[in-house]
């Protein structure tokens, strides 16, 4: 970033040249097959951090695959996003990468991701993709009808709430939008009387992930069926944003980009946040970040509007274009997707395994003391059934940015939901027309 600041795009190009000097593979073999007598080193880029289920799986994999050495390189989410295109375009692509599912439209449309069919024959550990994943996940893994990712963990939203506070205030878990509004209003407190809620408030994140949840529940969609025109400014979209605004006014705490940490952990720790809607990965985050609140939190299905619905995301395992050891990388990917190793997504990282067999592993159905002895995973699994990914269009990055801008504009009271979304839709249509 420092280089970028000094020389702009020239530095990008410089970085690309420099990246070519980086040896990402210790193997001279350029073949795509995995001959048993051929030693290979695959390079894996992993953004899971210190609690990585991928790093944990390497010793066992290397034991059973004597000719394949796995070299894991840890990168944070932002670095991965910046370095991945540079590495691929400079011919220095790693062999396997953990990629946020929201990156897929941009990366796939840019030609950065390999079609997995040639290397997998659409099979994972001897089973067809369709037998390994549910329908929502299968849809999210495809770009232009070809598989470009194998989903490793999934993200679908449920309601996290402070069960102790809810109980103390004599409230019940909300199941509909109307009930949710009432509950949020009763939960949140303005302790210093400055007009803003500072205790047990609902975290309101002005991002397209959370808007997607409400949009889907209100019967709306981001784009039309052909993905050629914006539809998020329909009555359903405007209603969804107006409802978001009502939640904020009733008892929400605005958690914009300046808060930095979108998980809301600082607010959870100091109890400004008493409710939030987020994915299963937050179970691990909250346990690590607020161990003193063990037993005080619970998870429930997100309150329903006109219908069920959620944003669907997560992490996909992708093989970049130009990967030198695609077959060996796929071997490792299959190993990671085996049910016993999928369990580690939960036990090591506290996230949700994406395969149906992984979700059925015993560790995921054990009562969780942190969440009052309940089994939160069943709610996330149910949410996944009706979840949908973002539209898979090349322009999504720009459209997402316009939507976020509209959400901020409306939630900060600078424009009505309709005006804000109309402006964003105009910008999105212009992008799509390109």
């Amino acid at each position, binding site marked *: *970033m*420092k280089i*970028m*600041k*000094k*020389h*702009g*795009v*020239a*530095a*990008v*190009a*410089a970085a*690309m*040249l*420099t990246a070519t000097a980086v040896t990402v593979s210790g193997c001279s073999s350029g073949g795509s097959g995995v001959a048993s007598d051929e030693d290979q080193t695959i390079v894996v880029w992993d953004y899971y951090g210190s609690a990585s289920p991928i790093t944990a799986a390497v010793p066992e994999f290397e034991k059973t695959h004597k000719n394949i050495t796995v070299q894991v390189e840890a990168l944070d989410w932002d670095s991965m*996003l*910046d370095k991945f*295109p*540079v590495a*691929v*375009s400079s011919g220095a692509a790693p062999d396997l990468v953990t990629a946020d599912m929201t990156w897929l439209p*941009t*990366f796939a*449309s*840019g*030609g*950065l991701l390999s079609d997995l069919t040639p290397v997998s024959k659409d099979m994972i550990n001897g089973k067809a993709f369709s037998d390994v994943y549910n329908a929502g996940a299968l849809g999210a893994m495809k770009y232009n009808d070809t598989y470009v990712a194998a989903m490793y963990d999934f993200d679908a939203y449920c309601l996290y709430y402070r069960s102790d506070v809810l109980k103390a205030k004599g409230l019940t878990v909300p199941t509909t939008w109307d009930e949710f509004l009432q509950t949020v209003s009763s939960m949140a407190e303005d302790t210093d009387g*400055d007009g*803003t809620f500072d205790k047990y408030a609902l975290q309101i994140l*002005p991002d397209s992930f959370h808007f997607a949840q409400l949009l889907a529940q209100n019967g709306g969609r981001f784009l039309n069926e052909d993905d050629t025109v914006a539809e998020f400014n329909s009555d359903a979209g405007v209603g969804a944003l107006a409802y978001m605004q009502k939640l904020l006014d009733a008892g929400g705490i*605005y958690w*914009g*980009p*300046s*808060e*930095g940490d979108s998980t809301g952990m600082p607010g959870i720790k*100091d109890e400004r946040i008493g409710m939030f809607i987020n994915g299963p990965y937050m179970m691990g985050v909250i346990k690590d970040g607020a161990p003193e609140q063990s037993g005080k939190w619970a998870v429930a299905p997100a309150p329903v509007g006109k219908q069920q619905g959620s944003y669907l995301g997560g992490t996909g395992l992708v093989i970049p*274009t130009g990967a030198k050891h695609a077959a060996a990388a796929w071997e490792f990917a299959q190993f990671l997707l085996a049910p016993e190793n999928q369990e580690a997504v939960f036990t090591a990282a506290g996230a949700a395994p994406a395969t149906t067999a992984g979700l059925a592993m015993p560790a995921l159905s054990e009562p969780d003391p942190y969440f009052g002895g309940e089994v939160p995973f069943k709610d996330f699994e149910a949410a996944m059934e009706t979840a949908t990914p973002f539209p898979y269009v090349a*322009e999504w*990055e*720009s459209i997402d*940015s316009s939507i*976020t*801008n509209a959400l*901020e*504009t409306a939630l*900060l009271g*600078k424009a009505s939901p309709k005006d804000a979304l109309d402006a964003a839709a105009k*910008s999105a249509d212009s992008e799509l027309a390109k």
Partner: protein
Amino acid sequence: MIAPAVIILGLLTFWPMALSFVWSFTKYTGLGDPQWVGFQNYLDLLGDPLFHQAALNTAFFAVTTMAVGPALGLATAILLNRKMRGRAFYRAAFFLPVTTALVAVAAVWKLLLNDGGIVNQALGLFGITGHQWLADPNTALPAIAIASIWQGFGFEMVVFLAALQGLPPDLLEAASIDGAGPFRRFWHVVLPYLRPTFVFVYVIGLIGAFQVFDQVYVMTQGGPINSTLTVVYYLINRFRALDLGQASAIAYLLVAVLAGLSYLQVRLARKWS
């Protein structure tokens, strides 16, 4: 002897610059062949409201920081050019933020300006209700500018201090003998003497100000409502969207503006001298 340096410079600086200049006339994702589009990327930018906002924000940041920073640096330099107790300590203290990583400084300022941060707590002591400085589109960019001025004015102070120490004392003495008071000595002797230093400070400062990125990245990520979106931040966004052609065009527009401003400053300096 200089061949290795020239080769390295050429390979790592001039060649990529030339490459990205060519890309600025293409549609290019980084893979495959760039597709020639002529001036389309530049024309798109000129009609892009988001780019206009980024340019305006950047100009606001540059004007604000360059109006206050050098003035503060000069005032501090004049104060610390006098004999006083603890002078070395103060000089080091004011320069310390310059040596600190910009990201660290931004992170600290973010904590200070947060809802429950020290700034709001201090205001609370006087019965003043705090403000969400970084979450309000009206105050986010000024807040970033203030943090940047605090971080950077120590550099300007050192440069002015070095120049002031080279000021021949007999010039000031002669002015005093002629009856000039402190203000007239400052206006008619010190300021003209510092003119080349001002040019240096403004050329370097403006180049840095127009490339503001780190503070925005850490403190607001371009929000809220794009109120802190800057040109370089927008460039990175285009890069992340794999639109290398437009990202390159933004970089060259920035180069053109900075080159123009630097040329203007040098011309003005020559005219005044």
